């Protein structure tokens, strides 16, 4: 690791100070003093700013690669064989320079580090001519992303590492004989194993700056575990990999997968509320939604409009009863906003979602007076301009 450990420690403290300021325990002057006393990295805390710098960094990266191509294009074939590695080299140089200038979570460093991973991945695919066997690229990317994570303590690299590991497992199992048949079970076992491994590492952690990476891996395991036993995923993958012809046949052990599709999210929810684990709580919400979707894909029990209306009513009832129950509690599980850890960022997205799903549109072209409802809930995205 080449990040300055002192600065990382300071970063932890300044972030704590930010939290305490939001919670109203300390005042602005105090925070200013803390920031002054504890020098830190060049950090962009605002996600929009970081995104803008990421884009600029990517442009810079691309333009440098363009210059190299311009110079090397006369080398023709040899150049194209090595260009990806050259570009990855540019990424390494850029990242090392930025880190030495104390840029961290700035957007610029993200652009260069992710550039390294992308170029190495593409380079390996071209070199090995492995368009159908993705195992070697996946292994390489996994190794490289772990190195970049560890060297630069770069959180997005950790995400790439997790995905690459999942890919390694997936492609590796396909290569094995009978691998496809046992794929869901092996994935479940591996995910569970890594979950408890990372969990143990977290509980014995003394340096907080490793916390985020481990937490990410930990949550990733939860998601992979759920997906590997979800009926929809298993069924579609069986059709894809084993070439099952199923018009109305069921996959083997379908009752097991249906059972898991419903018990796992509920178990997550229960566990999250018990251990006060917010990330697990959110994963359980998403998992429940996906489970409902799974059922609707195969059994259209209700027409969509009735399902939406009833779903809205049920959700409202759940929220209503929970709020009534939690309203007057002061400790533990409560409806009172937490001063320190709040997820208000999600509430800020509300206005944006309304605008995208219910915004009125001009009706010059259509016959119907207005396009109501039917709002695509995928709208909104991460623009976050409010």
């Amino acid at each position, binding site marked *: 690791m080449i990040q300055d450990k002192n600065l990382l420690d300071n970063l932890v403290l300044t972030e704590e100070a930010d939290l305490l300021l939001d919670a109203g325990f300390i005042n602005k002057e105090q925070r200013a003093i803390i920031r002054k006393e504890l020098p830190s990295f060049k950090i962009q805390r605002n996600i929009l700013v970081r995104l803008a710098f990421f884009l600029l960094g990517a442009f810079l990266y691309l333009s440098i690669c363009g210059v190299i191509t311009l110079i090397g294009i006369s080398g023709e074939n040899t150049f194209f064989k090595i260009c990806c590695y050259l570009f990855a080299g540019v990424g390494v140089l850029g990242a090392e320079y930025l880190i030495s200038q104390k840029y961290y979570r700035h957007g610029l460093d993200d652009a260069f580090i992710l550039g390294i991973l992308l170029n190495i991945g593409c380079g390996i695919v071209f070199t090995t001519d492995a368009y159908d066997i993705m195992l070697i690229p996946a292994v390489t990317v996994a190794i490289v992303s772990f190195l970049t994570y560890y060297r630069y303590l770069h959180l997005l690299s950790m995400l790439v590492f997790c995905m690459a590991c999942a890919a390694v497992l997936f492609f590796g199992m396909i290569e094995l004989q009978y691998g496809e048949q046992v794929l869901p079970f092996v994935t479940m076992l591996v995910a569970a194993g890594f979950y408890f491994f990372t969990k143990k590492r977290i509980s014995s952690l003394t340096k907080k700056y490793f916390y985020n990476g481990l937490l990410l891996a930990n949550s990733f395991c939860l998601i992979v575990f759920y997906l590997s036993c979800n009926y929809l995923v298993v069924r579609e993958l069986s059709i894809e990999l084993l070439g099952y012809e199923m018009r109305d046949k069921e996959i083997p052990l379908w009752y097991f997968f249906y059972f898991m599709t419903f018990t796992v999210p509920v178990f997550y929810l229960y566990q999250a509320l018990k251990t006060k684990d917010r990330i697990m709580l959110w994963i359980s919400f998403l998992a429940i939604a996906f489970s409902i979707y799974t059922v609707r894909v195969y059994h259209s029990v209700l027409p969509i409009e009735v399902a939406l209306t009833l779903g809205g009513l049920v*959700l409202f009832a759940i929220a209503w009863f929970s709020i009534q129950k939690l309203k007057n509690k002061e400790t533990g599980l409560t409806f009172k906003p937490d001063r320190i850890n709040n997820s208000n960022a999600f509430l800020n997205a509300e206005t944006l979602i309304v605008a995208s799903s219910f915004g*009125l549109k001009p009706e010059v072209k259509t016959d119907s007076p207005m396009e109501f409802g039917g709002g695509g809930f995928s709208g909104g995205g991460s623009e976050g301009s409010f």
Partner: protein
Amino acid sequence: MANLDEQATQNLFDKNLITENQYQEIKAYRSLGIFSLNAELKLFLYFSALLFTSGIGILIYDNIDSFGHIVLLSVLLILIGGCFYYCFKNSKGFQKTETVFESPFLEYIVLIANILTCIFIGYLQFQYEAFGTHYGLATLIPTIVSFSCAYYFDNKSVLTIAVTGLAAYIGLSVTPQDIFNSSNDFYDNQTLTYSAIALGVLLIVWTIYSSRINLKTHFTLVYLTFALHLISVATISNLFTDDLMWLLFTVVLGISSFYFYKVSHEQKAISLYIFMIVYAYIGFNLFLFRILDFIRPDDIWILLILLLPIYFIVSIVMFIKLIKKFNKEIA
């Protein structure tokens, strides 16, 4: 996790950066073990409102000929009446400043009531042509209702519906997914561009007037966000036109960027500032491109590619300076 947080607080205390009192206070608060579901449950309410109204909307749209119209209309009307009854009963009435309601449900009931009203008016128009062929009126009335609701119940979600309605009235689609794709044909339709810019200016003027009379000043950011995106997207898409009009639009973009530079400082709104910079940067690059295109320096393209990295480095340095300046000024 909790241990690590406590350790961080302990460290701050050890370094004498927080006082003994504060330290004890924080420790006592942490020991309560609060796990708040506030945001999550509110989000549930919110999604339930969206699901419910979407369901009703589709239900009516699909069955527009099969149900008895009167039955449908009366059911809708009863629902709307119920919602509004709840809202009026639980609200504190109109206030000029930001209002906080005790009931967590009110905000979402207002939203439901409002969307249902829009559906109701749309249905009236579709089935009975209540507003004749004045389709504009069928957009304008929901807009007015939404504006009144937004101001009376202090609801930002409803306000965004109102603003999109206002834009729809003059023929623009300003929902987030539409403003960036081609559903508004600014390029072929210059009148649309002028309307967009005019609407943007109107929204800005309204924010200035509101802040004069102290009317719901916390809505300003919503209006300004709409205005910034409207004006900028409209002018940028016109920077490609063939006649000399693009020069005019460059000037308009420049003026609006300058205005939003000022106003984002006043509002301390980094989202406005960032988008202003991004739009200005895009505009500036297009301007450079048009100039180069005009001169047509055929031989120096290679030189330009070689210069590109330097150009980006300079831009990055400028960006960093701008952000630093902003952070310093609003601190």
